[in-house]
């Protein structure tokens, strides 16, 4: 049941992506509104999917790669729509929807069936730790999208060669503000995600920190964002530099999320492809 719902959600996300891309190309506001509505519907279907899966499996569905990707895409959609309520931007919607669809598509390529829960994960810390970490990741992903758009817009303004995108993209300051806002919300979420993981590790394994690859990479990523936040607050790192940081940060994040599981064995590897 949840697998079928997942496929429906994926299809709706894909449609919303297509529609928002068309809206960007044709620069029509009403099409953009319809695309957003579709995104909201897709998100609702996806929410139902997660709830159904929770009851089918009997645990919070974030224990293998399929479930993680699904939850991450869901968080990304949710975070984006929250932002979109304040700052409405067609291009941003199109880019984020594309990313969501890509993650969902990857999720559908992984083994999707539910299985017995690894006893090590059977804890109330699971939803807290993973929820916080993924929310943080989702917020930083939005920052990544804004950063890419910032660099495109900045390039055009500096070189004075404008494509049609220039007129559709928001101002540099707006894009930079999104970057900062995401940092303000993403950083505490990420920090709490790491701390909750450490506390859980202490109660499960008896040690707060065991330098497993996921932990190490998460820490590196955390330092990166910490540096950006510090630079922003003290010497006014902004604009291009902040955008580049957000992009690098995102790739570290992606590696921590996916790369570590696929490439480096460790304590967190029960969420590998095998499930």
């Amino acid at each position, binding site marked *: 049941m949840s697998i079928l719902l997942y496929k429906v959600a994926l299809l709706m996300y894909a449609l919303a992506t297509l529609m928002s891309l068309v809206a960007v190309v044709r*620069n029509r506001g009403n099409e953009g509104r319809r695309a957003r509505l579709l995104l909201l519907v897709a998100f609702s279907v996806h929410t139902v999917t997660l709830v159904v899966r929770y009851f089918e499996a009997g645990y919070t569905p974030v224990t293998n790669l399929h479930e993680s990707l699904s939850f991450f895409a869901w968080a990304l959609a949710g975070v984006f729509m929250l932002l979109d309520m304040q700052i409405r931007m067609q291009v941003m919607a199109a880019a984020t929807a594309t990313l969501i669809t890509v993650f969902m598509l990857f999720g559908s390529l992984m083994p999707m069936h539910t299985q017995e829960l690894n006893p090590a994960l059977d804890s109330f810390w699971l939803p807290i730790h993973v929820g916080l970490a993924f929310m943080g990741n989702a917020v930083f992903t939005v920052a990544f999208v804004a950063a890419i758009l910032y660099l495109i*817009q900045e390039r055009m*303004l*500096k070189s*004075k060669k*404008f494509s049609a995108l*220039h*007129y559709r*993209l928001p*101002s*540099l*300051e*707006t894009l930079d*503000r999104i970057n900062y806002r995401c940092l303000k919300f993403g950083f505490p979420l990420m920090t709490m995600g790491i701390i909750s993981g450490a506390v859980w590790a202490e109660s499960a394994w008896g040690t707060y920190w065991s330098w497993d690859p996921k932990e190490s990479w998460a820490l590196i990523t955390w330092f990166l964002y910490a540096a950006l936040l510090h630079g922003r607050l003290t*010497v*006014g*790192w*902004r*604009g*291009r*530099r902040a955008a580049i940081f957000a992009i690098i940060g995102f790739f570290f994040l992606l590696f921590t999320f996916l790369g570590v599981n696929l490439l480096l064995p460790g304590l967190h590897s029960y969420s590998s492809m095998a499930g």
Partner: protein
Amino acid sequence: MEIFVVGLSHKTAPVSIRETVAFAPEHIGDALGQLKKLPCIAEVVVVSTCNRVEIYAAADYAEEGIEAVTRFIARYHGLDVEQLSKHLYVRQGDDAVRHMFRVAASLDSMVVGEPQILGQIKDAYGYAVEYSSVGLIMNRFLHKAFSVAKRVRTETNIAGNAVSVSFAAVELARKIFDSIEGKTVMLLGAGEMCELAARHFVSNGVKEVLVANRTFARAQTLAQEFSGRAVLFENFADHLHQVDIVLSSTGATNFIIQPEQVQNALRQRKQKPMFFIDIAVPRDIDPRVNNVGNVYLYDVDDLQGIVKANMDERQKEAIEAEEIINQELVQFKGWMSSLEVVPTIVALRQKMERLRQREVEKTLRQIKNLDDQGRRAVEAMSQALVNKILHQPTTGLKRAQKCATAQPYVDVLHELFELEVETAPGEMKKIDQVDQD
């Protein structure tokens, strides 16, 4: 009834002619009155702006109307018809309708997409209504033109981007800053261009204006005008970090702003972005300033390049607009021909009915010993015959009317059956009766 237009515009007449031929607002009533009295003109609207003078009219015989209107313009302004005709253009039927749609949608304007023309046409229509020189056709025609203009405006990007240097600067600022509101502008030099650009920024919500000029007194007057403050020209660099936008147009022969100064200012303002607009020739600002992070420098050529690109963009949008106009034109033609189709059908029926009655009477007179039932049968048979004969042509005409191709059929019917038709608005009601058959 046909629509036609006689007029001249910036494309056909120099300003010296346009200003002679223009109808001042206080004369339009008088002109409309005289035009209305012309025997061949049914309805009329006069559009008069600084770029165009056009008289739109509906007449039974367009050629006569055109001649009368042309003579009227010449007489009214004391010009020679020959001399005037050189600059006049004349369109009739579909071409006249298309012309009006294009003008209203600002496709025929000097600056394509400029919004004033629609308002001017609305004014012209207002006068025509006031002096009751418009009726069924022109009312419909003008309202259609307004809705076409609106469609073009909302469905294409024809009025999208700035087509003047100072607006281009404001639009660029909007792509750098969240909004211009609350920003601070510094004017270097007090040239006319600078002042104009500053005015655009102020009307778009700039919070504060700083003015620096070599003659301090001039800086002070200008600052007063923008309720800003004047600073000493020698010290302007000390204020750089306080401003978001710098508008420069001094007469200096060397660069007065160097990258190092800008870097300093940026450090002081924690890298908040700055927008430099250099409209001086020779330039005031070292072009290397553009390489400083979070700083954007545009000179006159850059801005003119943008204006040119925007103009081209509007031309592209205009192609889409023409498509919209074509669609609307077909619709309007359909309506126009309905004005002729319905009366034609009615006239055809009346003619047949007269023939039928005459023949039935004749027949009944000849057959003396026919009972009531027999009489009714003859009556019914003749009626059925007329209906059957007319059914096909009637539906065919209506179909043609929907595709706006009815005109030739209408003409042929008139010719072959020698129909007499009045195209009075009242006839419109009969459309329903005819539809019932």
